[in-house]
């Protein structure tokens, strides 16, 4: 049952003491509750997208051996509020030769395309706005709004930079939608459902029950999905649409003030969207280790609330790790060239994702679920995944130690920026 429906029914019964099934204003209450839920979701998006800009700039500063924003509030945590306020109070310019309606409507589409995904993203065991049974298809469809918005912004500006940027973004976004869809199809095959909540329920709390460690092809599909999703989110190394060194700023070059802010807002919120989809589809979503969904459904009162909160915490933790990883990637990898971008997508990612689908199909036919071979495969893949994670962490640590050593040799004293200082 839908979360808004169950809350609404209880609220009507408690407030007006009538039967919600026959009461004429029931749907009004539902609609108000859904709008409230939308408002809360927007609050979450703002609370995420704002501070993550600060985190990103601090990480960037750290990786480039400089400080980053640290003036507004303790350690600069309020920097995003000031940035938002400043953009809000800036003049809203529309070029005289621009196509005014297109120019002014573009931010709505870009923001709406990002925000629409939150209607199906499950945050916790029962914390999901709606469990659409066509969830994955809806995700792919609603993010199409972003492409239209960028094209509108690029064309409507009537500026050459914006035009090139807009067309380029459209080309990139539509190209990378193919590998994203194919990589998600492997999960749909295994779970037998397109609903995101069903995808989570198809997995378990323990790492070896996650789809990513199910078999080698799903493991590969996870990396394919993540690479393509980074490109969909316009993140480095795929941030061609706003390659500042060649296109100035791409499709948003003519925008100023609040309209510009909404483009940036959507971009940073997209960081959460892609990490959340990766978590839901491959990394077990909100599943609590050792607690099955039946236990959560059977619990009552504060225990139920506690399980919900715990599941949300687990989901947020998993997604945050991915977000942090993407931020790190941005300051590690160089930007691709446009021809390399297209070659990466069409000649590598698309054939590989098709191969993944075939591999998953064959393995599904050959290895029945729950058999000994299946368990062995999961353990082996988990070991491979752990090895990759440990290698990555060791590499990060070695880099940090080497930098510290260099600093000490150079300055004769310890580093000014210790490891424990956030971020």
């Amino acid at each position, binding site marked *: 049952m839908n979360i808004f429906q169950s809350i609404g029914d209880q609220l009507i019964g408690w407030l007006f003491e009538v039967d919600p099934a026959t009461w004429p204003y029931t749907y009004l209450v539902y609609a108000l509750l859904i709008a409230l839920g939308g408002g809360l979701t927007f609050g979450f998006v703002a609370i995420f997208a704002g501070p993550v800009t600060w985190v990103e700039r601090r990480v960037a500063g750290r990786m480039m051996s400089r400080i980053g924003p640290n003036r507004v509030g303790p350690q600069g945590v309020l920097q995003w509020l000031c940035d938002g306020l400043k953009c809000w109070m*800036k003049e809203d310019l529309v070029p*005289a030769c621009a196509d005014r309606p297109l120019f002014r409507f573009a931010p709505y589409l870009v923001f709406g395309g990002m925000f629409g995904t939150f209607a199906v993203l499950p945050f916790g065991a029962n914390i999901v706005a709606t469990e659409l049974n066509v969830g994955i298809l809806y995700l792919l469809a609603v993010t199409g709004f972003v492409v239209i918005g960028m094209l509108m912004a690029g064309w409507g500006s009537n500026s050459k930079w914006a035009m090139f940027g807009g067309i380029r973004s459209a080309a990139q976004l539509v190209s990378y939608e193919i590998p994203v869809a194919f990589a998600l199809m492997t999960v749909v095959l295994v779970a037998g459902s397109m609903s995101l909540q069903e995808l989570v329920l198809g997995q378990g709390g323990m790492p070896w029950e996650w789809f990513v460690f199910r078999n080698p092809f799903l493991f590969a599909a996870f990396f394919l999905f993540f690479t393509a999703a980074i490109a969909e989110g316009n993140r480095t190394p795929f941030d061609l649409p706003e390659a500042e060194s060649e296109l100035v700023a791409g499709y948003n070059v003519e925008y100023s003030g609040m309209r510009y802010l909404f483009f940036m807002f959507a971009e940073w919120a997209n960081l959460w969207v892609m990490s959340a989809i990766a978590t839901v589809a491959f990394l077990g979503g909100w599943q609590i280790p050792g607690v099955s969904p039946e236990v959560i459904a059977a619990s009552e009162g504060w225990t139920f609330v506690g399980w919900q909160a715990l599941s949300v915490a687990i989901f947020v933790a998993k997604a945050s790790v991915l977000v942090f990883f993407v931020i790190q990637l941005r300051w590690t990898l160089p930007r691709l060239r446009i*021809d390399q971008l297209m070659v990466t997508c069409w000649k590598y990612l698309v054939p590989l994702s098709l191969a993944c689908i075939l591999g998953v199909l064959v393995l599904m036919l050959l290895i029945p679920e729950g058999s000994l071979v299946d368990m062995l495969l999961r353990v082996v893949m988990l070991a491979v995944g752990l090895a990759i994670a440990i290698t990555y962490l060791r590499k990060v640590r070695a880099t940090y130690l080497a930098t510290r050593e260099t600093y000490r040799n150079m300055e004769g004293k310890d580093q000014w920026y210790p490891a424990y200082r956030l971020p």
Partner: protein
Amino acid sequence: METAQLEFSVVLIYLLVSMIVVFAALLLGRFVRPKVHDPEKDTVYECGERPIGGAWFTFNPRFYLLALVFIVFDVAIALVFPVATVVRDWMVAGDGAIAVLALLSFIVLLVFGLAFVWGHGNLDWVRDIEDPKAAEEQS
């Protein structure tokens, strides 16, 4: 009201909320932001020079080809997803081979299409104009 109706109305209301949020922010900003008119501000950015002509001119046809390829793939994806959803149930029911064959026929068609576009050189971003095949396409 049926469940599906309620669920899609949630989607609709979420999209409406996003539109209203953007609209409200822009509307409220109207009262605090300055509006100083200046003909220089009305021009588009072209590296500080006075802009030469508009930007609404013909662009590279490779974008058009790319969009065509995308549409073919996207329609195929929209068709394949429902099939992929039922494959697991069919395997449980013992009709795994049929399901896999149905899915395979789709995917083989897609691979064939991709190979065709690839062989035609439409996936190459950098093209040699001296290449007779490319020159033939250009004409």
